């Protein structure tokens, strides 16, 4: 017969105020198999835990039930106490008397009776508990960082500097991300490339970082500490080991009119191209969609130009496999294009730009070498209008959230415009100014007060073209809703920051959850902002939600520390809450009939085929086996199993049956 100890906590008065705890202990003490039952003011305190430890030894308990708060709160505490007293920790269970009973019911007979039922239920479960051993899995001390923007760069450098190897993959031909496109950064107005490019070079030269550009994740298998990543290296059509990056091919390429992605469509590039002059690696790739040779089978001018014979026409995509122990997702964000806004001309008007396009105009490396000129006719705009919250905070557009960075960069844009175009007039239409951050509010005040940017609080209803001007019709809500009409030469939309394209598919490849806007979901909004719900996969930067550079860098370093902490272990200890297929003595071997329904149900590919062979090596049967490294313990297979041969430790059929029956048979 079992010898179970039951410990009822008062939780100060949190439980005892509505539950008659003494009666609970008394009645449970009379249950079959209960050797010891007490109540105490604070079970989780040191003396409380000592009661448990002493009772385990004194009565030789083979099971413990603690009736206290939620097991989500203190299960680890009490299991540790039991382990210290020599009892297998998985023989300790908790009855949730606080969150599920005393806090949600008034003081009454029924409340105490429910508390008794809850404890009884767990006593019956503990009787069926089996000692379990934690699962140890090895750790591959190498990290995969996906995305080579500032988040990925920072995370890679921080991990690499702890002495661990990093594989950084980037889908574009160069690392740098959106930050490399920016002109100056708020609130200091220092040049974005000046602070970023040294980091990019550091990544390329770091002995611990292996960089794959023009590469995408194909699939990820495995689990924390033991992932297997398949990476597609897209064909660059240029042999990087011989290419010197001289750039002769780029100058001779006859296809010159392709809109440049780096310049947000404002400039052009060739078919063989380096995205921007400071690119890392600074070697070209051939854009096969636009290249004459791939389109029409003739041209090959770049091949004739190349002195070292680096052009590889027949090169195919290559898929490599890398083993990693942790993954950092740093895939960043995207901005909505002007074509998303019918009220502002569906992107038809050349002089209606996005904030990112304005960055390129203002950037010294941009298509106008830093001069603010209209894309339509190249003249300098005398009047400019900035529209904040273009799309953001607009449930009608499906983007109810705040994109967070636009208030600041709009102030910066207006400031840059005032600095570059003397005598120019700039107007900002805004909903609210959200300038939370160190020196941010001061920066916005500077734009308004020193640079005389005209801030109008109100929405813009329409933008339309008339006689070469852009007519901006809006409202000034601080003037009692008075209509405002401005004849502008250029309009800049602070378009909403949205999840990067392909983020949903990537999330599904990695089994991480994502929010309704396809940003990746953190494990806990406050306490686990860089973790995902999938162990071993971490988040950095704007792939989680729109954020500015300092926040992104902070988050990337945070993710790097989590990875380094994970890599400080040689082995990981996992809870043994996994499924197992029963094994019996020959000639039965198992009740598993090998239908593999479990295999179709398992989201983790944890079901393996085990061949049972006779002494002569002949195959007797094939049954299912659970890879306990892969199994996450959801138990979906258990409900699927036709022959009830697979069961989940900690929540076995026997255990849950005992729990349910204890509630009914009285």
């Amino acid at each position, binding site marked *: 017969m079992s010898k179970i100890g039951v410990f009822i906590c008062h939780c100060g008065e949190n439980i005892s105020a509505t539950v008659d705890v003494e009666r609970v202990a008394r009645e449970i003490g009379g249950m079959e198999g209960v050797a010891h039952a007490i109540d105490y003011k604070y079970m989780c305190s040191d003396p409380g835990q000592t009661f448990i430890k002493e009772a385990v030894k004194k009565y030789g308990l083979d099971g413990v039930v603690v009736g206290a708060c*939620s097991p*989500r709160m203190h299960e680890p505490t009490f299991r540790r106490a039991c382990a210290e007293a020599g009892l297998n920790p998985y023989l300790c269970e908790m009855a949730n008397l606080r969150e599920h009973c005393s*806090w*949600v019911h008034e003081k009454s007979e029924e409340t105490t009776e429910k508390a008794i039922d809850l404890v009884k239920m767990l006593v019956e479960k503990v009787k069926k508990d089996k000692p379990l051993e934690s699962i140890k899995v090895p750790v591959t001390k190498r990290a995969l960082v996906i995305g080579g923007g500032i988040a990925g760069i920072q995370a890679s450098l921080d991990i690499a500097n702890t002495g661990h190897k990093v594989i950084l993959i980037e889908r574009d031909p160069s690392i740098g991300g959106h930050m490399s496109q920016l002109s100056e950064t708020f609130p200091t107005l220092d040049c974005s490339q000046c602070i970023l490019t040294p980091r990019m070079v550091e990544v390329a030269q770091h002995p611990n970082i292996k960089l794959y550009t023009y590469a995408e994740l194909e699939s990820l298998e495995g689990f924390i500490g033991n992932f297997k990543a398949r990476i597609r290296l897209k064909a660059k059509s240029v042999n990087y080991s011989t290419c010197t990056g001289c750039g002769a091919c780029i100058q001779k390429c006859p296809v010159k009119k392709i809109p440049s992605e780096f310049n947000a469509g404002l400039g052009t590039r060739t078919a063989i191209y380096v995205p921007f002059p400071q690119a890392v690696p600074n070697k070209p790739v051939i854009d096969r969609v636009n290249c004459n040779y791939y389109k029409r089978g003739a041209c090959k001018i770049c091949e004739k130009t190349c002195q070292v014979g680096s052009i590889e026409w027949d090169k195919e995509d290559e898929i490599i496999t890398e083993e990693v122990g942790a993954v950092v997702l740093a895939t960043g964000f995207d901005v909505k294009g002007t074509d998303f806004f019918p009220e502002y001309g569906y992107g038809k008007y050349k002089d209606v730009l996005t904030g990112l396009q304005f960055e390129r105009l203002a950037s010294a490396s941009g298509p106008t070498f830093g001069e603010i000129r209209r894309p339509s006719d190249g003249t300098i705009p005398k009047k400019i209008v900035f529209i904040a919250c273009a799309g953001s905070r607009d449930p009608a557009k499906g983007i109810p959230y705040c994109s967070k960075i636009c208030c600041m960069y709009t102030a910066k844009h207006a400031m840059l415009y005032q600095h570059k175009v003397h005598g120019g007039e700039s107007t900002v239409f805004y909903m609210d100014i959200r300038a939370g951050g160190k020196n941010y509010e001061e920066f916005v005040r500077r734009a308004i007060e020193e640079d005389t940017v005209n801030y109008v609080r109100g929405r813009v209803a329409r933008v339309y073209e008339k006689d070469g001007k852009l007519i901006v019709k809006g409202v000034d809500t601080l003037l009692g809703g008075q209509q405002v009409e401005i004849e502008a030469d250029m309009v800049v939309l602070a378009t909403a920051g949205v999840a990067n394209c392909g983020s949903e598919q990537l999330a599904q490849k990695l089994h991480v*959850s994502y929010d309704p806007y396809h940003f990746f979901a953190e494990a806990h909004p406050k306490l686990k902002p860089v973790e995902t719900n999938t162990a071993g996969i971490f988040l950095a930067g704007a792939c989680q939600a729109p954020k500015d550079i300092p926040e992104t860098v902070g988050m990337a370093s945070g993710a790097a520390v989590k990875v380094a902490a994970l890599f400080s272990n040689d082995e990981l200890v996992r809870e043994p809450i996994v499924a197992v297929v029963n094994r019996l003595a020959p000639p039965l071997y198992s009740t598993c009939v090998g239908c593999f329904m479990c295999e179709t149900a398992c989201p983790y590919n944890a079901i393996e085929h085990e061949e049972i062979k006779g002494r002569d090596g002949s195959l007797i049967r094939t049954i299912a086996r659970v890879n306990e490294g892969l199994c996450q313990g959801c*138990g*979906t297979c258990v*409900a*699927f199993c036709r022959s009830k041969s697979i069961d*989940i430790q900690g929540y076995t059929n026997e255990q849950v049956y005992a729990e349910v029956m204890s509630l009914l048979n009285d």
Partner: protein
Amino acid sequence: MSSSTEFEPKIIAFVCNWCTYAGADLTGTSRLKYATNVKIVRFPCTGRIDFLLLLKSFAQGADGVIVSGCHPNDCHYTSGNFHARRRWIAFRTVLDLMGVDIRRIQYSWVSAAEGSKWADLVNNTVADIRALGPYAEYQKVAEYLEKEGFDEEA
């Protein structure tokens, strides 16, 4: 509290650890009150729930059952709640065909952030089952089956 003459239904809630159990914890933390009739049995995932256990519960005297887990796409294990949903749809049809009163099974989704939804779910289910009265019919059938040896596990 209800008068002693009023019927107090026995209801068992089968909930997942990550969403509904945590949601019910939040109900407690928020000090929202609800009826004492429902007792929670914790599972790792609604995908783990063997629906035959629901029938067992009815056979042994439960008057109603709640099954609740994560909302679609929120499953901690990616797809367990989809399996549970599919199973419920098929199971519900079969039960209905067999003459089981499916109004006694409340299938729901309560997230870890929906403490008040849990309180409402419990109160509404208790009120509904109370109106339906004890589920004695099923128990009689189960007793007969047991006596005749149809039910091997009992």
